[in-house]
């Protein structure tokens, strides 16, 4: 049996965990600044840490791509623009434990030889922004940020930057454009940010949870981290359970835990109901059903079953939920958030929305099912960034698993489900 391994969440039940008193001294940063920067990169490589923002790219390898001795300014940018539907881990992490992030920023910036770092936080979370601002201020006051940190001669400035409402800015190159003061639209890659990122300089963009995990790796060693998880998906991560579960919430566990194990801890599906479908890692990851309860939640196993681990955002829906309605709402989201730069995504999400609306009302036909699959095929892989690809995940996976439910809508000329039964109060 897999058990929970609180590391980043371990102090969340402590009053004042968001202050230095509640967090403790920056011992890991002190240790890192006494090491060679390359040794810090090597430690993160050895730990096997892979990006916690969804894609799972090896963090140490990303850092290693930064050219050294190039005479250019280097930048670290933390992607704290958590907006993927279902994903809700970085926000409580920054609210309860912002110092783990700030300490991680110091170590990571030192490793890649950056003297300027940014935390780009979505703007719609005021209290989280306050907490991160306060943590940064405290770190400056203690001399953990600014000039000559710990007497090492290393200087680092850290800016907390609030976004202004745009899901697309969670895409790393759109985030960089936004941070430069432009509309947040993705750039064509290559060049990758490691070569030409912020201000066309070498830049590392990492997710909050990735950076916040770094102090524990430096403090406890790469082997300690690699001792958790699976062979290729090492370490721990926060699993976010939401929806029709008895005890939704944040569960920090080794990668490779299963939904069945997590549901056991969370009290199961809400009383009197059963699991119908779920997302392993947010709305951009193809949906799973009850047949996937025992899939180890690591990058390889979830991928082998046709989905993606993503951000471990486990949105759980029981048998009262209409899958067509769920997919329509996600599609409306992608249409709303498409930045408009690439035609397949801009036009495709618009048309998907129109057809799905018709299908949900029971006014569609079997040709409409072929149409949404066809539109999705024409979006997938044909846009600059992954937003368009993500929009196709709910379409393809729902048609695959729930084709009959789509058909049922136009057989009876309406939705066979009562939305009231799915609500929190409807179950009582």
């Amino acid at each position: 049996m897999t058990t929970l391994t609180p590391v980043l969440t371990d102090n969340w039940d402590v009053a004042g965990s968001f202050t230095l008193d509640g967090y403790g001294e920056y011992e890991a940063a002190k240790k890192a600044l006494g090491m060679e920067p390359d040794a810090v990169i090597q430690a993160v490589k050895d730990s096997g840490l892979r990006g916690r923002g969804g894609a799972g790219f090896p963090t140490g390898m990303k850092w290693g791509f930064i050219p050294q001795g190039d005479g250019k300014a280097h930048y670290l940018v933390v992607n704290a623009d958590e907006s993927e539907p279902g994903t809700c881990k970085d926000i409580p992490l920054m609210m309860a434990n912002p110092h783990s992030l700030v300490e991680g920023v110091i170590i990571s910036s030192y490793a890649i030889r950056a003297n300027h770092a940014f935390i780009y936080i979505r703007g719609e979370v005021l209290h989280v922004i306050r907490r991160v601002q306060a943590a940064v201020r405290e770190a400056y006051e203690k001399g953990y940020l600014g000039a000559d940190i710990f007497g090492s001669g290393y200087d680092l400035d850290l800016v907390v930057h609030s976004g202004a409402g745009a899901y697309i800015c969670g895409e790393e190159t759109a985030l960089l454009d936004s941070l430069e003061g432009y509309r947040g639209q993705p750039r064509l890659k290559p060049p990758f940010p490691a070569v030409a990122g912020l201000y066309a300089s070498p830049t590392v963009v990492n997710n909050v949870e990735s950076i916040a995990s770094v102090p524990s790796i430096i403090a406890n060693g790469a082997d300690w981290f690699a001792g958790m998880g699976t062979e290729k998906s090492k370490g721990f991560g926060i699993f976010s359970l939401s929806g029709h579960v008895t005890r939704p919430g944040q569960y920090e566990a080794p990668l490779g835990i299963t939904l069945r194990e997590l549901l056991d801890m969370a009290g199961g599906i809400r009383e009197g109901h059963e699991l119908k479908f779920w997302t392993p890692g947010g709305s951009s990851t193809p949906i799973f059903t009850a047949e996937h309860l025992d899939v180890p939640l690591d990058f390889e196993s979830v991928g082998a079953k046709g989905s993606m681990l993503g951000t471990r955002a486990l949105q759980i829906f029981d048998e009262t939920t209409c899958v067509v309605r769920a997919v329509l709402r996600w599609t409306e989201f992608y249409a709303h958030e498409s930045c408009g730069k690439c035609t397949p995504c801009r036009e495709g999400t618009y048309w998907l929305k129109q057809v799905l609306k018709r299908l949900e009302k029971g006014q569609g036909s079997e040709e409409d099912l072929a149409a949404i699959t066809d539109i999705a095929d024409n979006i997938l892989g044909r846009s600059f960034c992954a937003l368009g690809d993500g929009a196709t995940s709910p379409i393809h996976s729902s048609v695959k698993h729930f084709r009959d439910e789509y058909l049922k809508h136009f057989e009876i000329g309406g939705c066979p489900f009562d939305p009231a039964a799915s609500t929190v109060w409807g179950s009582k």
Partner: protein
Amino acid sequence: MTYAPEVRERLETDAKEIIGRYPRPRSALLPLLHLVQSVDGYVSDDGQEFCAEMLGLSKAEVVGVATFYTMYKRRPAGDYNVGVCINTLCAVMGGDQIWAELSEHVGVGHDETTPDGKITLERLECNAACDFAPVMMVNWEFFDNQTPESAKQLADDLRAGKEVAPTRGPGRLCTFREASRVLAGFPDGLAADGPSAAGPSLEGLKIARANGWEAPKAEGSEK
């Protein structure tokens, strides 16, 4: 219309501080637009002109950016921006019903403001609090685990000028303008208010504690 001299002076002082945080001035544009909202309650024509002047941009460049982001209001908004999450999970858990009842109760639709200027309603996309569904946000503070009744009560209290507090956040709710100032990077001293974490955020940790589960010890570590 242009800003009164004392307003202009204050804006310039703040703007210079913001611009000073960045290696290149244009990076200050998003916080400057938040700053404009903290004074005007929306991204006003004067405000956009001001940003352009401060950054050496054309006004068209500023407008092009301001219109891209949903948090920038293009016309005067209410003191309280009341949002209901209608993304899939919250919608299914009750957000759709909350939106329908609240919108009817308040008498305005999406991106519309009540005649008393108190409330602007907004249909929100996911706000990263799915374990607290259905979620509402007022001036970007969390109002977790809402019902149609609690939502209507909240709107009534806001319109009556009663003090309301977010479920995870400070003891009192800021106005939209005050919140915008924090977003521009000027703290309001309320960071220490409220719990470290609450409710669902702590479920996993509670179970770990009850079962004595911990992360493995590091080799040679006393901890």
